[in-house]
């Protein structure tokens, strides 16, 4: 992003506005695939050696020879290398598009994928402002995480396999983001589901980890079910699945608030809820922490989970046409944010806290998309990608060194449990500093990135709550209040995390303390870069109301509302429809009134107060280590600790009944009824045979008797009939 600022100021020659030729867009997608293929081959080769060793009874140790095993060298360069080239290409195209004031999306179709007489789907990609932003985030943050992974996964046996999966994930994510229609998006949609399945279950020999992977895939599949149905309805209505035609003809086909469009949007929301872990279908994300930490950073923080938000923003026109589903999206978003924030308060596993924090922030993004502030949602998505990735990678660094330390004294304490940490700030200085930056950013403290994006979402919720013709005005006000509360909660649990991990005296065993060391440079450099982005990322889209004020450095920031202008061609139609449907957004908040600037000041000051209070309160308190704190909390804290019992509820109401039904179907219907009938037909014939044999007694008399019976019957028939 830094390079962008430089290009902007140097004033590159603006190509003629009308037409802009993308530079090798196909290559951006192809590169990660290439990376996957090469790394895949390397992985299979390495796996071949390791399986040979395992078959011979020994464990395979690639580090036997040099410090740097042969299997690691190539993937180290190909994995991140491919990402770097893709990022550079994306940036280059961004610069090109930046100058070209593009209005119509550029669509490149490579081959016709499905071609029946009524359904025509091309393998086509679509380049416009929205997909460009997403591509930059995916490849940019992706590249930093790849570099971090080099350090993090250094002593893992399946190193090439890890990078193969990571590249495959980026490939599918790009297909999702750059797809020119719902069908292409669906390929990426399920593809990233597959990669998250493979990466969560990366250490597949561990049963819980592969269970977590399976759970993620099945829950995603439930979301994809909704997405599929939405696609069928779209095909039914438009006869095609391409974005261009659908969004152009949407207004013609649907009346505002019409039945089908609401159904379509709700089903799309179901798909988004599955993928972006919103309330009913969020259960898989916390378990997904079983995967390696960089995976959590890339997939479960920065890119995959934001796919749902991207899809909602991309189908903005449809959502604008269905106010009810907009209210539902916003409602689900804010509800998720609240629930996840409350759960995060009681979690002890550092990654679980961050996981619930992600779910909560995603809730905010859906709130933004729900109320129609699509730009705000994308803005928060971008800034969130920066500081959440930073938080996860920081946590990864902490876990890495904790693991290393505990390993040295070979104690079996959980390296991820915050109750075993404490006082790491003097050992891991850089990580501590960058983590604080990220925490302040996510808490929404001025001037960091989080403040601008989250504040804009909260403000738009308030603004649209006051819109004249908004049928859900009251509801939006409630959303606004809950959003404010959740923002405070976020500040609190993040500070709790920082305090428990870095402050106070270390609860680590004495021997292990000396082995705690700062992460190697290959891990800290991406951390620092992300920290820079977390600080300056927010200045990309400073709202006009704030840019002149103190909060906006009195106009010094060059790119006020840049992102808004940038995404104008995408969000323009949706905004127009929304204004027509709900009327102009109000200029001051409901209930207490006050402008955007006022409320921005209030929220950032409140956040600052919460952080200060939390540091002062939690700092001195002695936290029991994991061993001592055996009894799980009870009462309200217990409910939060047990994640509002979502897992148990789903297990008892859905999973067990289906399993029981399956067993019943097999044992009863299949074996007893159907097979029973089939076998009984067989037995019936044997039975008839046995009955017939009764008459063959062998004595002449019985035959005489039967003979007479026959005579009787014949005579009787002759005489009487």
């Amino acid at each position, binding site marked *: 992003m830094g390079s962008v600022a430089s290009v902007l100021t140097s004033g590159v020659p603006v190509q003629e506005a009308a037409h802009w030729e993308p530079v090798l867009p196909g290559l951006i997608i192809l590169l990660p695939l290439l990376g996957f293929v090469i790394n895949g081959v390397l*992985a*299979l080769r390495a*796996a*071949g050696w*390791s*399986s040979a060793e*395992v*078959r011979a*009874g020994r464990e395979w140790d690639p580090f036997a020879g040099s410090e740097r095993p042969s299997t690691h060298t190539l993937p180290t360069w190909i994995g991140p290398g491919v990402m770097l080239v893709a990022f550079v290409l994306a940036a280059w195209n961004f610069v090109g598009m930046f100058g070209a004031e593009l209005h119509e999306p550029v669509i490149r179709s490579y*081959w*016709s*994928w*499905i*071609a*029946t*007489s*009524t*359904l025509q789907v091309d*393998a086509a990609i679509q380049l416009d402002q929205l997909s460009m932003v997403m591509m930059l985030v995916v490849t940019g943050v992706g590249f930093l995480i790849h570099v971090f992974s080099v350090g993090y996964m250094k002593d893992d046996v399946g190193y090439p396999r890890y990078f193969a999966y990571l590249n495959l994930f980026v490939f599918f994510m790009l297909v999702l983001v750059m797809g020119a229609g719902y069908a292409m998006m*669906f*390929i990426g*949609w*399920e*593809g990233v589901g*597959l990669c998250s*399945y493979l990466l969560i*279950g990366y250490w*597949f*020999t*561990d*049963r819980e980890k*592969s*269970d977590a*992977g*399976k759970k993620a*895939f*099945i829950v995603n*599949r439930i979301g*994809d*079910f909704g997405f*599929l*149905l939405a*696609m*069928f*309805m779209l*095909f*039914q209505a438009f006869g095609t699945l391409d974005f261009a035609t659908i969004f152009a003809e949407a207004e013609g086909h649907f009346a505002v608030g019409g039945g089908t469009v609401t159904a379509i949007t709700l089903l799309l929301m179901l798909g988004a809820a599955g993928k972006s872990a919103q309330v009913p279908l969020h259960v898989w994300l916390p378990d997904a922490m079983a995967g390696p930490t960089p995976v959590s950073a890339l997939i479960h923080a920065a890119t995959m989970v934001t796919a749902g938000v991207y899809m909602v923003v991309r189908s903005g026109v449809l959502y604008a046409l269905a106010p009810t589903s907009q209210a539902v999206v916003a409602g689900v978003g804010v509800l998720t944010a609240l629930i996840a924030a409350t759960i995060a308060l009681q979690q002890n596993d550092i990654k679980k806290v961050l996981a619930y924090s992600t779910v909560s922030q995603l809730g905010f993004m859906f709130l933004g998309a729900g109320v129609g502030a699509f730009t705000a949602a994308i803005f928060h998505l971008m800034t969130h990608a920066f500081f959440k990735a930073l938080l996860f990678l920081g946590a990864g660094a902490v876990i890495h060194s904790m693991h290393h330390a505990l390993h040295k004294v070979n104690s079996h304490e959980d390296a991820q449990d915050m109750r075993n940490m404490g006082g790491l700030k003097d050992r891991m200085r850089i990580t501590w500093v960058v983590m604080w930056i990220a925490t302040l950013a996510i808490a929404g403290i001025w001037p960091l990135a989080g403040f601008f994006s989250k504040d804009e979402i909260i403000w738009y919720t308030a603004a649209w709550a006051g819109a004249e013709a908004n049928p859900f005005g009251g509801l939006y006000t409630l959303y606004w209040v809950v959003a404010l509360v959740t923002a405070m909660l976020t500040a609190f649990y993040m500070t709790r995390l920082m305090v428990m991990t870095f402050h106070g005296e270390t609860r680590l065993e004495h021997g292990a303390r000396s082995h705690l060391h700062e992460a190697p440079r290959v891990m800290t450099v991406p951390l620092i870069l992300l920290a820079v982005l977390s600080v300056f990322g927010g200045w990309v889209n400073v709202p006009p109301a704030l840019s002149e004020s103190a909060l906006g450095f009195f106009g010094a920031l060059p790119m006020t509302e840049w992102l808004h202008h940038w995404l104008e061609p995408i969000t323009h139609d949706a905004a127009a429809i929304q204004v027509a449907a709900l009327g102009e957004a109000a200029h001051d908040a409901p209930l207490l009134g006050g402008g955007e600037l006022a409320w921005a000041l209030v929220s950032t000051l409140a956040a600052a107060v919460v952080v200060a209070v939390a540091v002062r309160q939690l700092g001195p308190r002695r936290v029991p280590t994991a061993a001592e704190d055996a009894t799980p909390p009870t009462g309200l804290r217990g409910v939060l600790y047990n994640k509002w019992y979502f897992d148990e509820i789903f297990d008892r109401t859905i999973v067990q009944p*289906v*399993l029981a*039904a*399956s*067993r019943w*179907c*097999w044992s009863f*219907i*299949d074996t007893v009824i*159907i*097979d029973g009938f*089939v076998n009984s037909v*067989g037995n019936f014939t044997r039975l008839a045979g046995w009955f017939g044999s009764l008459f063959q007694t062998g004595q002449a008399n019985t035959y005489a008797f039967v003979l007479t019976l026959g005579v009787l019957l014949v005579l009787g028939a002759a005489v009487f009939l």
Partner: protein
Amino acid sequence: MTDSLASIQILYEGWILHALVWLPILGLVHVMTSAGERAKNVAFWWSAAVFVLSLGLWWTFDAGSGGFTLESSTPWIESWGVSYALGLDGISVFMVLLTTLITPIAILGSFEYVKTRRRAFYALMLLLQTGVTGVFLATDIFLFYVFFELTLIPMYFIVGIWGGERRIYAAVKFFLYTAVGSLLMLVAILYIYFSSGTGSFSYEAFLAADLSMREQLWLFAAFALAFGIKVPIFPLHTWLPDAHVEAPTPGSVILASLLLKMGTYGFLRFLLPLFPGASQHPTVVAVMLALGVAGIIYAAWVAAVQPDAKKLVAYTSVAHMGFVMIGVFALTVNGLQGGLVVMISHGVSTGALFLLLGMMYERRHSRLIEDFGGIGRVAPMFATAFVITALASIGLPGTSGFIGEFLALIGTFETHAVTAIVAATGVIFAAYYMLPMVQRVLFNKLDKPENRSFADLSRREMVVLGPLVALMIWVGVYPTPFLERMEPSVQVVLERVEGARTAAHRGAPERMIVDAGAGEEAESRAATGTVDEEDQDR
């Protein structure tokens, strides 16, 4: 390139279909005369040769107007009007190619598996290939019926002799189940033969038979039962798990990939065209869709709790065929094409799955899922192939499974939205039954010592799985050549059913004049305004 194509086409004109049907018999003779060990190689090379020969069909087959191409008909039993007639159209070309592809692969896959009476085994496999190819190519109903019954016998012996413990029960059950169905069909065939009055068993004669709606409904029921057992449709499926569990691996592969397709092919070739009135009848369609959906959900649920891996995969076949049924009876172009693609992708993916299970059985002599665990650590190539095949089976986009299921569902949605919605839940249940198996076999701890010596794929096994995996991905990524070739034939079938629907709506008399003569046909078609179809009565 095009003129060489033309030359191949001319080259292929008359004899190719007959060659495809009867070459395996020559192979059979050669196998019987060769020594025991060499039998498998001879059989493999013969079927591979037939496959290479059939590849020519892929390029020379011009879909044209959807009717039969490369037709040839010589009288066989004069007095009854039975002719030995073969023909190829958009629907059967893929089935024939699937047959010629799967048989050599199944034979190659059985090199280590079959140890006793090898000559007889491979002879039966080639006989089976002839039977199945005959079924797909016959355009004379009598000849079709002969081949339909012929395929039963080798399969019966393969399951009965080389099978597992309860093979006799399974083989007898399989044979009786199918025989009962086909006898009913024979009755129906004879009924049409006599009522059509043309005194010939040819497909055109049967198409021209004008049957009242009541007759059509009864005949539909008879045919549907015979093919329903073969497909298998929901309540008639209990022979499949037994047959699969007890059958030897190559038997299972052929059974899953080819024999099930004869059922669904029957629906497309006979039920829809011969009884258009009945097949578009609302209650009939409702019943068939209900059975199809029930099959999908029921089979998925039952599959999830199977301890035996082969039985699990057998039930998944029932689920996949459920998709074909809803696709076919949605009576839309997408539905039918979706059904056809599911048939192809199921043939490839389930065939590969059974081969993989066979390899597991060869190494560990057990089919129970819990006997395995952590195979991924010990056999990475095997694990990769297993995961790709499993993904194709549950229909991940980018694999053939998805194309079929997506088209079938979208086709069904166009006419029967609710059915499509319920059937779409099958997508979730697909993951519900497949992923636990993949996890319990490949992932989890490598705790059992026997699994440690689980050898990875040998070169032969890679050659067996290679083409199947490649086909799964090719159809998933670039299905257009398949869709183009099947399109015209599907249109022809649909027009017949459409024609019947408009005739029924216009309150046509009880005895529906479906196809009496060109003149009337043109007039009735012009009346309904659909495009005039000259080659309708070729």
